[in-house]
């Protein structure tokens, strides 16, 4: 059971404990708006209550994460599980991996609630008393259904709406079938019925981790000696655009040093891929966290770096309880401004030749979305820093470009959004950066 559903059951338990469910609950509707992260402090706010319904919210740090609506009345009669066709039992050992929405369209089956009942037994005693332990377990199973069965691994639980029913079928199981899929949003709607509940579940099929073009694919568009003679440090090169840049530069004959802050395995896998197609020493890997001292971390390089590509990043899209969070700006400034400057400074100090650096800025500066103003502000500050580094005598020439929205793990979303092909967007920039040498300084 993931914490979203766990929090919902906790909310039901608290509402029951405080006498809010004495009218007899007929329906439960839940909408998940934001994630609830592990170890968050969750508050339950009662927003509205009358004789017919309750509206309550789960709030984390002032941010509404979940909306619950309970309706009161007598439970409906339901003679049997009202799903069409013959359903087969689903045993969920590993999460199902669905990628294509079409695969989801035919999904159906039933899931035992026994295990969920055992797990939740005694955890929500007031909810058990108010709506029945079997139904509490059935609600818990909705989490199993979305996270393990349909759509499984790449799921996002959107909402559920259930009636509490009196069924004559005492099998402790929840049956389901997919009733609708919507390609526009990769959305799945399922009917659910059994163990005293009947209704629908809305889930989304997230994109799996975004893979960038392979070295072999990159090699088709880059000449083998195009960038020969240079050595590039790719900060934040273990994944995403940094990893793609490393492949492009190495495919052009340059030596690359890829840094990672936490993704050691990804960085090593990338180096293996590059070295498998080039010389053994074409790609090296070092750990480098731009939030820590640059000099000590870059000391083991012992190689003159001619080009720097700075893709250090962190999670951009954050849950916030206000339009501006100053600590977030501090975090972003450290990564996108101070970290970049420190890296350039150390490379310049250690090197005999001038440094050509690439600073990837963002089209978000043009659009200025309210939801990521701290990120946009930090990137703007980064741009100003770069402009002044070029004006001042820093022995560093910085190339800045505002990249369009590219398909990466950061930007993958269930909402329709146009994204450019990363290789198409990066290749001309890399060619521009590589064409610059110390002669320009």
């Amino acid at each position: 059971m993931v914490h979203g559903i766990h929090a919902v059951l906790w909310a039901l338990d608290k509402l029951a404990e405080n006498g809010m469910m004495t009218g007899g609950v007929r329906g439960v509707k839940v909408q998940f708006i934001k994630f609830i992260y592990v170890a968050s402090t969750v508050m339950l706010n009662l927003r509205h209550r009358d004789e017919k319904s309750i509206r309550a919210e789960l709030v984390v740090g002032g941010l509404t994460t979940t909306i619950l609506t309970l309706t009161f009345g007598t439970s409906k009669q339901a003679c049997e599980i009202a799903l069409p066709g013959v359903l087969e039992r689903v045993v969920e050992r590993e999460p199902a991996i669905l990628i294509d929405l079409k695969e989801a369209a035919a999904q159906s089956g039933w899931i035992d609630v026994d295990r969920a009942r055992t797990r939740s037994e005694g955890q929500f005693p007031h909810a058990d008393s108010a709506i029945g332990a079997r139904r509490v377990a059935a609600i818990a199973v909705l989490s199993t259904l979305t996270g393990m069965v349909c759509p499984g691994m790449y799921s996002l639980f959107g909402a559920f709406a259930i009636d509490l029913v009196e069924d004559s079928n005492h099998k402790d199981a929840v049956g389901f079938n997919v009733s609708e899929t919507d390609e526009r949003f990769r959305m799945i709607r399922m009917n659910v019925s059994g163990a005293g509940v009947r209704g629908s579940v809305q889930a989304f099929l997230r994109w799996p981790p975004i893979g960038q073009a392979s070295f072999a694919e990159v090699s088709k568009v880059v000449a083998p000696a195009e960038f020969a003679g240079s050595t590039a440090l790719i900060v934040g090169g273990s994944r995403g655009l940094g990893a793609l840049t490393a492949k492009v530069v190495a495919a052009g004959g340059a030596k690359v040093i890829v840094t990672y802050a936490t993704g050691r395995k990804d960085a090593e896998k990338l180096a293996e891929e590059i070295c498998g197609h080039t010389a053994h020493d074409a790609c090296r890997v070092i750990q480098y966290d731009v939030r820590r001292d640059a000099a000590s971390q870059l000391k083991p390089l012992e190689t003159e770096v001619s080009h720097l590509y700075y893709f250090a990043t962190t999670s951009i899209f954050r849950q916030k309880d206000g339009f501006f969070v100053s600590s977030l700006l501090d975090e972003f400034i450290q990564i996108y401004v101070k970290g970049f400057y420190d890296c350039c400074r150390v490379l310049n100090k250690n090197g005999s030749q001038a440094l050509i650096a690439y600073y990837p800025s963002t089209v978000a500066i043009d659009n200025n979305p309210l939801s990521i103003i701290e990120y946009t502000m930090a990137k703007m500050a980064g741009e100003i820093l770069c402009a002044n580094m070029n004006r001042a005598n820093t022995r560093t020439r910085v190339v800045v470009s505002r990249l369009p929205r590219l398909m990466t793990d950061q930007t993958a979303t269930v909402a329709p959004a146009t994204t450019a092909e990363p290789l198409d967007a990066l290749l001309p920039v890399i060619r521009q950066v590589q064409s610059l040498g110390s002669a320009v300084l």
Partner: protein
Amino acid sequence: MTDQDILALFTKIIRDLLSDESITLTMQTKREEVPNWDSMNYINFIAAVEIELGVKFGVADIESFEDVGAIVAQTSAMLR
């Protein structure tokens, strides 16, 4: 249904979705200007409008709406 009626309905839907009674949409409002109106809630908003008014937006429209006024205009055209 006039454009102003549609706008009022949109305001009601987004207030319910985001549990925020302080929101008042105008034709010029951009999604980025409304706190917490993220991509997931954009989907929920579009889905709620479709259910409420019995219309269905094309994926290209959903991607390209620049402001609330554009959604109102498209909705109004579909209702005619």
